[in-house]
């Protein structure tokens, strides 16, 4: 025990403070413990595990064989994967573009003066597809998209357009998935943009109108620039969700015909859980992760150029 004569006044004062700090740190770690444990077991560990497994050839029944970069070399040469990647990228581009454009359009539509009741039902209608499960909604859409007896083609036929083989043709299968996904999610983005529109100070719009701006100029120089934070957020989310598209295509088209509407996650699922090529499936998953992480980082970088915060 320290003799009180040899301890300086400064240290005397610091002792109780250190004790308080220690106590706080102790509680900090305790409070963090549940999440930390779960995180290590189910996120960090598996992340490293996936990278490790992607260097193996393993079907879970026989012992794993080391393959080094073999899986990644096979990735590059995989013709099916090339088509699947192309499908996924096309899907993402179409999905994000349509969601953004229609979402903004819908938000602008809803922004005006609407009687309360109408607004209530409009929000209900737009948001309901969002919260329903993908599998339930897709199950219904299967009926809608039938070529000969489906309702969509019935109405197309009524207005003189040809009946489209939505789910059966390689040309239209992916488009069907896009159509479904946009229908399902555009309400969400519309609400995000609507909230963003409400954040635009009315003084700015009024000032612009006083200066003689017409509708189009208003949109281009006031509304849209001030909406960029919402657009940025929506694009990031839409991209992440787009690359992970699975249930939509799995249920609507099974990836068919052939591989025409197969997506990367479907391929991971197929390789990992149908053919039990754990190593290869992991390598595809790691590739997906790298692509998505890279894209997200790029977007954050680029956002400094085009996103305008008030």
């Amino acid at each position, binding site marked *: 025990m320290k003799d009180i004569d040899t301890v300086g006044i400064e240290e005397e004062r610091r002792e109780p403070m250190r004790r308080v700090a220690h106590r706080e740190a102790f509680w900090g*770690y305790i*409070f963090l413990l549940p999440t930390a444990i779960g995180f290590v077991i189910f996120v960090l560990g598996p992340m490293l595990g996936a990278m490790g497994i992607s260097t193996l050839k393993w079907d879970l029944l026989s012992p794993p064989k080391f393959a080094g970069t073999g899986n990644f070399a096979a990735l590059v040469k995989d013709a099916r994967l090339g088509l699947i990647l192309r499908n996924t990228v096309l899907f993402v581009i179409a999905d994000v573009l349509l969601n953004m454009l229609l979402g903004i359009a819908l938000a602008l539509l809803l922004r005006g003066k609407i009687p309360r009741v109408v607004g209530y039902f409009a929000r209900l209608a737009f948001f309901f597809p969002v919260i329903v499960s993908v599998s339930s909604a897709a*199950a219904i859409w299967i009926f809608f998209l039938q070529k000969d007896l489906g*309702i969509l083609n019935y109405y197309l036929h009524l207005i003189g357009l040809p009946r489209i083989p939505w789910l059966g043709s390689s040309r239209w299968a992916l488009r069907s998935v896009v159509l479904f996904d946009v229908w399902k999610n555009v309400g969400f983005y519309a609400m995000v943009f609507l909230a963003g529109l409400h954040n635009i100070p009315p003084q700015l719009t009024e000032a612009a109108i006083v200066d003689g701006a017409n509708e189009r100029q208003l949109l281009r120089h006031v509304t849209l620039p001030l909406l960029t934070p919402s657009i940025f957020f929506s694009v990031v989310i839409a991209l992440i969700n787009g690359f992970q598209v699975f249930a939509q295509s799995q249920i609507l088209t*099974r990836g068919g015909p052939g591989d025409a509407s197969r997506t990367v996650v479907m391929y991971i699922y197929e390789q990992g859980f149908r053919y039990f090529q754990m190593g290869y499936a992991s390598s595809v998953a790691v590739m997906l992760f790298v692509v998505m992480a890279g894209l997200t980082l790029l977007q954050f970088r680029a956002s400094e150029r085009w996103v305008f915060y008030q």
Partner: protein
Amino acid sequence: MAYRAGRVLFYFFLFLIMALMVAPFLWMFSVSVGRPSEVFVVPPHWIPSVVQFGSYLRVLRELPFLSWFLNSFKIASLVTVGQLFTCSTAAYAFARLRFPGRNTLFLILLSALMIPLQVTIIPIFIIMRVLNLLDTHLALILPPLVSAFGVFLLRQFFLTIPRELEDAAVMDGAAPPLIFWKIILPLSGGALATLAVLTYNFFWNDYFSPLIFINSPAKMTLPLGVGIMAGRYVEAGGMGADATGIVAAVSMSIVPVLLIFLFAQRYLIESITMTGLKT
């Protein structure tokens, strides 16, 4: 005059889009109570000519529908409660407690937000296999008990709670657990409810994880059961006999969501879109 025309056009488009959004569901309800032969009748009957619940009864009899429903309920509830616990405690630590490495750990946690489930699912599958937990509900409940998103959401909220409240308690000698329980949590009703709503909805609708971990029909969740039914229909070439059965099953799976939506509508929409603005 132009104003009138503008209004008419506006309402026309608004109602058209609203109709497109709900059309599939209206058709679904209508067909589910109709005759099996009328599923593909043309022109489509938006209002059913007969109302009979035979398809519903058939589905309930032939499929473990009630089990699916209870399974979804059980899993979504347990995961939601679990996440509320783990995320609030971790968020409190990050928001208000000081300890070495806090910022680094937080950044690591945030980076986890970018890790897609598909990367970690294979190792998790192997873990579950080793633990003999395949085809059990635990495999679906344990991994999502922690959520980087939930921690992030709650931390941002906790940061907005005025420090004076806690300082007063600290001066009275309160330790962090007491502060957490008596001060922070009671003030966080909104944020906790937001997280709960988002989490519950997500896990109720989850298709991917149940597909991977569950094989026995009785243990399946609602989306999985419905999805498999629909998938079989597609495989049969779209002309299988039990079209009304599928439609009835989907109707039943949607009704709970519809009810909750009607009651909590404003809250649900606001919480989902608010997360966008706050983050």
